[in-house]
Structure formats: C-alpha cells, structure tokens
C-alpha cells in the first residue's frame, strides 16, 4: 500500500525525530525574527542615508556605499552570501558557529530589502509633512524621527511583514553552512531511511503552517496599527 507506507513513514519520522524537528522550527523562527528585526533597525539608518534632503558630503559618500550594498545583496542569492560570509570570516580567524553566521547572513540580507521598502515608504509620505515640520523649526533628523518615519513605517507594515514570511522560507538555504533549521532537520531525519519525499512533505507542512500563522498575526497587527493614510498633495 503506497499511501499507507507514505503516511506511515511520515508518522515514523515525526515520532522518531520530533525533538530535532521542533528544534529546527525554533531555529527557523529565530533566524527569521532576528533577521527581520536587525534588518529593520539597520534599514532605518540606511534609508535615512538614502533619502536625506540637502545631504552633506559625508552623507553622500555613505549613500554611495549604501547603494552599492543594496545592489550587491539584492542581486546575489542568499545561499552564495552565506557561504562567502561563513568561510571568509573563518579565513580571517573568526571561528563562528553556523547559527551565528546564519543570523548574520539573514540580517545582512534583510537589511538590503528593507532599506528599499522603507525608502519607498518615506517617499510615499507627502512632502508637505516634511515642509511643515521644518517650518516649525525641527531639524532634518527630528523631522525624520518624529514625523516622517512613523508614517513611513506604517505605510511599510505590509511589506515588512512580508519580508518576515519570505525569511521563514528562504532561511532554508542556510543549510549550506550547516544550520539545522526546518528544512535541514527534516532532511536529516528522512535521510536515515532514504525517505526524501516523506521528509520534505513534513517540511512543506511545517513551512505552510508557519507562514500562514505569521501572515494571520501580521494582518492583525497591521489592522491595529491602521491602514496607510492618503494625503491631499500640495500644489503650492
């Protein structure tokens, strides 16, 4: 019986490796969460550098760096980045474990995407908001901090949440440096009995449950924070 053996094997693998698989789920969530949070924080700084008006010399030099960073990271696969970071740091004498290296990679990667997300969010805020804040005497940084970013982040909530969900799935590539997240944990479990399809079915279901739950929670958060505001654009 093909079906009986398919589900039978799934049951057996889950039973035997539940601890490892649960640990894998924890690692996947850790990577996605840390990556998105750290990426978001750095992206706040990078998007400021990218969008600052009347940028001085230092800001413009930093902007060249940020632009190059975003282009390179978004233009190369995270798997390749993971391998380069993991081994080049080792060659430089930094002996880090796969998980730390994985956290580093996913943070670096998410930073690039969220920098662009936030830049879009900032540009979607009406320029009149900026001018009004500057007109009461707020400096450029105060204006960004108290007026523009709160609105830009709100406008970007859906995209930031989406980045978290993408991270849940895409951190599977970190198996190449030996991180044991959901995919790798399931694969290792299945390998014992040469049952790849069964193992990957388990992985698929776990990913589906994780992404659907996350998307449900994120939607609820989005609803609470409120939908983006459309402003009348200024004509003067």
């Amino acid at each position, binding site marked *: 019986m093909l079906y009986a053996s398919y589900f039978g094997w799934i049951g057996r693998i889950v039973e035997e490796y539940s601890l490892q698989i649960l640990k894998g789920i924890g690692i996947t969530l850790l990577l996605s969460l840390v990556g998105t949070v750290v990426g978001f924080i750095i992206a706040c700084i990078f998007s400021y550098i990218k969008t600052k008006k009347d940028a001085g010399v230092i800001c413009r030099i930093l902007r060249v760096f940020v632009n190059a960073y975003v282009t390179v990271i978004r233009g190369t696969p995270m798997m390749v980045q993971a391998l380069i970071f993991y081994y080049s740091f080792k060659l430089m004498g930094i002996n880090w474990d796969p998980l730390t290296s994985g956290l580093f990679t996913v943070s670096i990667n998410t930073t690039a995407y969220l920098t662009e997300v936030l830049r879009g969010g900032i540009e979607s805020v009406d320029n009149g*908001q900026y001018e009004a804040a500057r007109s009461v005497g707020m400096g450029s940084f105060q204006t960004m901090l108290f007026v523009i970013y709160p609105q830009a982040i709100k406008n970007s909530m859906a995209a930031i949440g989406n980045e978290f969900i993408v991270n849940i799935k895409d951190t599977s590539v970190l198996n190449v440096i030996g991180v044991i997240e959901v995919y790798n944990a399931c694969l290792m479990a299945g390998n014992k009995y040469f049952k790849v399809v069964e193992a990957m079915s388990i992985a698929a279901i776990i990913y589906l449950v994780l992404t659907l739950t996350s998307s449900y929670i994120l939607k609820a958060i989005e609803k609470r924070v409120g939908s983006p505001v459309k402003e009348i654009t200024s004509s003067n």
Partner: protein
Amino acid sequence: MILSIKNLKKDFGDGEVLKDINFNVEKGECICVIGSSGSGKSTMLRCINLLETPTSGEIIFDNQNIKDMNVNVLRSKIGMVFQSFNLFNNMNVIKNCMVGQIKVLKRAKNEAREIALKELERVGMQDFKDKDVKSLSGGQKQRVAIARALSMNPEIMLFDEPTSALDPEMVGEVLNVIKEVKDTGMTMVIVTHEMQFARDVSTRIVFMNDGVILEDSPTEEFFTNPKNERTKEFLKRYINSSN
C-alpha cells in the same frame, strides 16, 4: 521694522521667478499679497523662512540677515500656514500643536500642553484636541494648523493661500480666525485670492506680477486708486467675476 526684503531674486534654473523683490514689514502690520497664479507669491513667502534659498538679495529679520541665522531658530520665530494644511498625520490635534514646542523650543510637556490648549481655544478647536487629524474637515484642519503655528509664539505669521484648498462653505470660519489673530496685533503676510477679506483685514496690499512687485500701497488706496495699469486690469477682472 521686523522684516526687510532687499533685491530678492530667485531662479530655479529655468528663468527668474523672483526678479528684484523689495519690501518691508513693520511690526503689527498685516500685508496681503495678491497676484495671479505663477507670479511668484509662494516662492517669495518660502524664501522668508528659507524653505527656498534665495539666489541673491538680502532678507533681514529682527535686524539680522537670515543667512547668518540658525535656520531652525529662524523658522521657529516664523509661523507658516500652508494651503494644504500639512498637519502631522501621525499625531492627534493637540500633539500637532505640542511637538514643535517640545522638540524645538524645549518647553516642558505640561507648559506645551497648556499653550496648545490656549491656542486651540483661540481657533475654536479645543473640543477636538484628542481627535485624529484625519477625522477633521478642511476648515477644521486649517484652524488647527493656525493653532500649531501660534503655539510657537512666532513674531510673524506667513499664510500661503490658506483658504484655496477649502470647500466654499468652510472659507469663512478660517478667514474669521485669521482676522481674530490679526486683532491681537500679530504681524502677518497673507497670500490670498479673497479680495474682500484682503480689503477687510490688511493694512497694505502688495500686488505681484511675473516675479516683480507692481504695486505696494495702503489697502484703501490700492482698491480705490490703483496706480498701475495691470493692477487696474486685475481689479476689474475681480470685480467682474464677483458680480
């Protein structure tokens, strides 16, 4: 003299928008700037608080060349009211009136709240203090924007077509508030197309055309005895259109 503009020129790169603007504002004066669209009224106003950088010329505010002043200090002393209100969308009504006081003037929260409440009362918006700005009508938004500017205790207020984005039935409430502010002795420069209002409220009219000031006269003289041909034409058009 609180404000003096000398030989002000502004060029955005494709021709001069302001060509040699000269005029002075005395303390307590209320000046209305009129002129057809594209004549450079907004640009002139925006040069005063350095939202635009003049190409050449001098602007003296409080006996100081604004070029030598800290731009944020300068702006904190000049209240600006925009055509499109530009209330901070991420703050409620009273926070809109407090944030500048706290972050720029470094006032304590309680003091800032008291002043904000007082100014909101002045514009008749105190009952809306905890409301989201998105829930307000255009006229209410503009009144809050005026309160926000007044909360900074500016030395001069600049209005750039404060009623042009409003539905007709809301123009009156905003003009009344501006009149009341004027009656407290506030120095004001108002760009407006509301001729009757300009006549009622201003002490002087500045008429701009194509980047130059064609006429700068006391209000009654401007309306009863305009000197310039273009002014006469402009006024005729206004009288015709309002009949």
